[in-house]
């Protein structure tokens, strides 16, 4: 709490009047306020006026709320308790226990089912039979293209083998053997051939 020791002026004193009357003023403020009142007639007058108004207000008879209004307010409050109070009241009722047990069992069951769920069967797919059949044809076509390329590779290998190896060997053999068969001097065979297919 703040302690006020230094003297205060009229404007500060004015803010303390109400707390002083209600006896809610801090001890340090009280001392400073009373010191100021001792030498300030204006503030003393203000304090007296405030005290009189407060006393007159307290002497007024209390106003009663009309019974109809009170009843409506109370009925509304009873019908619409705060959600936290409603939750607490529901939680305290024993009915929640079987409901909770059922809900928990259902949640666990569904969770277990989802975790152990096997891959969905084809029937459960979002694709129609026609779409699957089309995809099957496309996949087969893709594999057919791959097979075609492999076949080309095989042909290429056969052609290369024939042109680069077998044909020169055959020509060499022919060049070596034919002259002997014909009784001529063998001539070295030319390398490669005009039909060699090198790209």
């Amino acid at each position, binding site marked *: 709490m703040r302690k006020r020791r230094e003297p205060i002026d009229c404007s500060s004193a004015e803010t303390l009047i109400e707390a002083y009357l209600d006896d809610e003023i801090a001890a340090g403020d009280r001392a400073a306020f009373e010191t100021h009142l001792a030498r300030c007639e204006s503030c003393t007058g203000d304090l007296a006026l405030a005290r009189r108004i407060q006393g007159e207000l307290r002497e007024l008879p209390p106003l009663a709320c009309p019974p109809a209004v009170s009843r409506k307010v109370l009925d509304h409050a009873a019908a619409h308790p705060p959600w936290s109070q409603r939750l607490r009241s529901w*939680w305290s009722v024993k009915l929640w226990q079987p409901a*909770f047990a059922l*809900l*928990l069992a259902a*949640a*666990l069951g*569904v*969770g277990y089912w*989802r*975790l152990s*769920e096997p*891959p969905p*069967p*084809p029937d459960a*797919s979002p*694709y129609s039979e026609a*779409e*699957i*059949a*089309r*995809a*099957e*044809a*496309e*996949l*087969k*076509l*893709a*594999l*057919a*293209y*791959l*097979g*075609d*390329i*492999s*076949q*080309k*590779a095989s*042909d*290429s290998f056969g*052609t*290369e083998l024939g042109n680069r190896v077998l044909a020169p060997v055959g020509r060499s053999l022919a060049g070596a053997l034919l002259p002997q068969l014909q009784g001529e001097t063998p001539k070295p065979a030319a390398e490669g051939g005009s039909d060699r*297919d*090198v*790209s």
Partner: protein
Amino acid sequence: MSPKTALLAFLLLAAGLAGAPSAEAQPDLAGEPGFVDFSQQETLGEDDLEIAISVKDPMIKLVAEATRESDPVLADILDKLKVVEVLVYKVGESQRAAVRGEISEQAGALEELGWTEAITIRMRGARGHVFLRIVDDFPAGLAAMYLDGENEAVFVNIVGQIDPAQVGRLASKFNLDLLSQAVSGSLGSGDSE
């Protein structure tokens, strides 16, 4: 915490668990080591596109289930795949050289990214590369680029665990022309996801 409050918290937790959506297997393509984006070609554009196929994980699994009885080998292969994409472009004579160069560049880029070249095709003007992406000793993706000797370029990307031999055996059963006719009109009809 009172027993009632604890029970309430537990109930809310259980309810949250029950209501949580299960993880849907949606492939994050950018994070897939076996994924290659062939859609951004420099020379070839939308106008040149003849066939565009993109089938992703949920649909691939559905097809696998649908074909398990009639074609168990196909179903086994599809089970391990996440994405299958094919782009087929028509290539004009004026575009051939640029496309061939671009395919070579893409092949080099894939090698730099750690892909392993499994097949190289060089025959009568045709160029082709088939790459595999191996992660932890398992194939995680296949990328194939092929420019034929005429007027077609094909780009294939398969993401997932691929057994090339198994795929090759199965692919040889499929008739490319018949399947092309069956899927004709797929261009512009959207992806089968």
